[in-house]
């Protein structure tokens, strides 16, 4: 195959696009799985929340690559934004609860 033949360039570009898409999607899936595992096995709550932020960001990027732009926007806003703030509020309440318990002791 002569790569300098302009008729072949479109085919090569198509092939490169397809290969690139597959590589990017699978790598994102592997990273997503790694984040999910970290999230599941993490004992320290702030570490788990950090893993959750990265998880939701990779999920948004993956959804964007799959062509679901609106869904990716919603995932980014809800995943990293709303749920993140709610988890932080829960963490703060847990801390207050622990402090109250220590004071009682």
């Amino acid at each position: 195959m002569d790569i300098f033949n302009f008729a072949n360039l479109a085919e090569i570009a198509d092939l490169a696009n397809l290969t690139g898409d597959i590589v990017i999607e699978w790598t994102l899936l592997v990273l997503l799985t790694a984040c999910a595992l970290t999230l599941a096995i993490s004992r320290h709550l702030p570490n788990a929340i950090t893993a959750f932020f990265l998880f939701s960001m990779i999920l948004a990027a993956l959804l964007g690559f799959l062509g679901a732009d609106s869904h990716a926007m919603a995932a980014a806003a809800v995943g990293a934004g709303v749920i993140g703030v709610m988890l932080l509020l829960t963490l703060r309440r847990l801390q207050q609860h622990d402090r109250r318990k220590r004071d009682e002791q």
Partner: protein
Amino acid sequence: MTEFVAAGLVAALGVLGLIFLSFAVIGMYRFGSVLNRIHAVVKCGLAGALLLILALIALGLADLESLPESLPGLTLRLGLLGFGLSLSLASAGRLLANFEVRERRSRVYYDELEMTSDGKFKQVPSAKASAKE
């Protein structure tokens, strides 16, 4: 020829974004402290996600046939996605770091051990904490 260049640009941006995201995940595994992990995740993760979004915009630009109809909407949606990610992740990282620093301070105030008469250790609020209250 334009398609070839666009495909190369998309591949370069995509691979660079993936490398940054991989660094974020590796940092999350390797670093011990929460603050270091937040640093790795927020900086590398955000850079990786924004590079991937740029790759998607380049992919939309490469599709010359549907350019007039789809490009403004696509660019706007992807731009909003990048903006939302930057805003939410940076704020969340700041809040989490703030929480961690406060918790560390309270741990310094509270985690002092005192030996009781039966030889066991008991957690007591330190003098610093009492003075603060």
